[in-house]
């Protein structure tokens, strides 16, 4: 193996690219963190919800005739239409998320954690393979809503898509944070994740709150899916697999159960990956897992998480 010569400018440029990548990790990671918070379940199917998010944004564009046939000329898509795509995708993903919870996870709420984890893997497989049948296993190409333009920012290049990603992700994350901290349903969520039994006794609608958690997590993942599709328009049914695992790593890194932790973990992971990617893109895929193992060894509660103690 040989190392490429890399300048420090290149590294900083990559780090900046990593921020937009990390913003998407963060959007997906909050779904893992919230579900783990209320159910102590690693929702393996969450990566697939992100994948569906991208597809569900693709289809409105296709139905509206904005996707050319093969070899056909690319029609210009009006910018407002992205709003239609995102809204459709968010609604569809929220429905899917709640459906998964209702059909697959709720029957297992009192079962062993192992059974729940395996079910989650099963749901993930089902969505992957179901999508392969529904959408076909050949890649679909997401329409371009904006022409790629680069802005010079000091000595760095930033593309308009990157800026869009960062801004949308930041708005979504802040919105989520406010929702969880300031609203009544958000308070119910925190109560359920603190202690489900007590929350129920205090009159919190636990089932409804859990369904809401899945819906919101799925909406965030769908936003992540649409944002990624704007940057890398190639959609495949398997795109959620690795992305989901990495976002989960981001959640663990930040401290599972913590929403600001998910944001922080996502950013760190995105930057670390991009910087390593300066040398080797294949090794970049290993970064997440190395981080994962290090975090679990050194501080399993993550950067912003809390530790628990077993009662003897």
């Amino acid at each position, binding site marked *: 193996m040989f190392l490429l010569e890399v300048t420090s400018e290149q590294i900083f440029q990559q780090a900046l690219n990593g921020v937009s990548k990390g913003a998407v990790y963060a959007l997906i990671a909050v779904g893992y963190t919230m579900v783990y918070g209320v159910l102590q379940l690693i929702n393996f199917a969450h990566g697939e919800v992100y994948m569906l998010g991208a597809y569900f944004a693709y289809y409105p564009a296709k139905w509206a005739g904005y996707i050319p046939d093969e070899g056909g000329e690319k029609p210009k898509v009006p910018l407002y239409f992205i709003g239609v795509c995102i809204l459709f995708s968010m609604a569809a993903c929220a429905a899917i998320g709640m459906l998964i919870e209702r059909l697959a996870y709720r029957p297992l709420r009192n079962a062993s954690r*192992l059974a729940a984890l*395996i079910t989650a893997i*099963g749901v993930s*497989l*089902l969505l992957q393979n179901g999508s392969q*049948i529904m959408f076909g296993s050949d890649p679909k190409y997401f329409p371009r809503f904006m022409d790629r333009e680069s802005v010079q920012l000091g000595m760095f290049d930033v593309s308009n898509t990157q800026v869009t990603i960062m801004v949308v992700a930041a708005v979504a994350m802040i919105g989520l944070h406010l929702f969880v901290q300031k609203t009544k349903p958000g308070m119910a969520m925190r109560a359920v994740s603190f202690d489900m039994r007590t929350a129920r006794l205090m009159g919190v609608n636990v089932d409804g709150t859990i369904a809401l958690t899945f819906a919101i997590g799925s909406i965030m993942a769908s936003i992540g899916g649409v944002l990624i599709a704007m940057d890398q328009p190639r959609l495949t049914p398997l795109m959620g697999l690795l992305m989901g695992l990495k976002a989960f790593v981001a959640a*663990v890194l930040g401290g599972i159960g913590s929403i600001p932790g998910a944001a922080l973990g996502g950013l760190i992971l995105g930057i670390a990956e991009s910087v390593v990617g300066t040398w080797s893109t294949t090794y970049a895929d290993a970064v997440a897992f190395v981080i994962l193992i290090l975090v679990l060894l050194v501080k399993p509660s993550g950067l912003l998480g809390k530790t628990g103690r077993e009662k003897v």
Partner: protein
Amino acid sequence: MRRSLATLLVALAICAGMNLFLAQFIEEYVVQVINMVGVSIILAVSLNVINGLTGQFSLGHAGFMAIGAYVSAFFTTDLSYFNPDTAEYVTDPALVSSVWGYLGALIAGGVAAAVAGVLVGIPTLRLKGDYLAIATLGFGEIVRILITNFEKVGGANGLSGVPQFQIVLSGEGKDALALDGTFFIFSFVIICVLLSAQLQRSTFGRALIAVRENELAAEVMGIPTVRMKIFAFVYGAFFAGIAGGLFAHLLQTVTPASFTFMKSVEVVVMLVLGGLGSMTGAIVGAIVLTVLPEALRDVEQEADLPGIRMVVYSLVLILLMIFRPQGIFGQRELSLRLLRRLVPGRRISGDETPKPSEDRKGTEL
């Protein structure tokens, strides 16, 4: 020991007979599936020691398998690769070419995987449940990515031209009467199953189960839980490595893509289907889940619905977890005692167990 040795010899003879019979009378494709069943059994039975007996949830079995596959193939295969220093393709001839060399290569693969098992076992000192699952998953992925970047063994394309070995009994050339892959695979199946059964029914097996059932109580009883957990990983990894080596030489090619985390999931599902903690269950699970996809492949072609087989597979998995999470066998073993209990009229109730003076060596296998 004499008893197990005798069992082993008889079993090996049966393997040899089965090998010759299959090669003679059964079509090649079916033999291939049977061989794959053998590899799956080794994987499932060895993972059962980690996940089933010891209760550690490993999702990294594909990683151990990959190490075994690549290390053994490294010894037996001519390696062609691009040397960037001299800027030309070079070929290193295989290091071993005899049947004994092959066995040595398999063992080396197992040992390499076992060493990795120690490395993975150490984090288990701290991690439990799904955190351990996700850490072992990470380990498996790291192994795969490292191999993908290792040009000498073919990088992402993998290694091809992995040889097959045979023991010629008589004759020459195509008509020779020879023991081949089937014999090697099922010999290791027998060894793995026999040793695992003997492990399970020993003070160490009970210690492993004690760790699973209640780690704190096990510690207080003086069972070195940390050492037991590492042992379970080493044992499971060794046989996963052997299975990997057999797999590579069966398919005659290895690629990193064969060892994704889906492969680990597949083995876990075998255990869960059969009943986590039951070796009988592991074996049945391995057979069903290796044969079923092959059978569904035909259905898929006839119905012209590519991918439906995996949909069925995942649906079965979800329904299984919802309606029978303990699997087919639960934690029971299929044994003579269980069979006897099923026969009406000869019921053995739970409290009629033999007293210590009685010789219980007979229940060993």
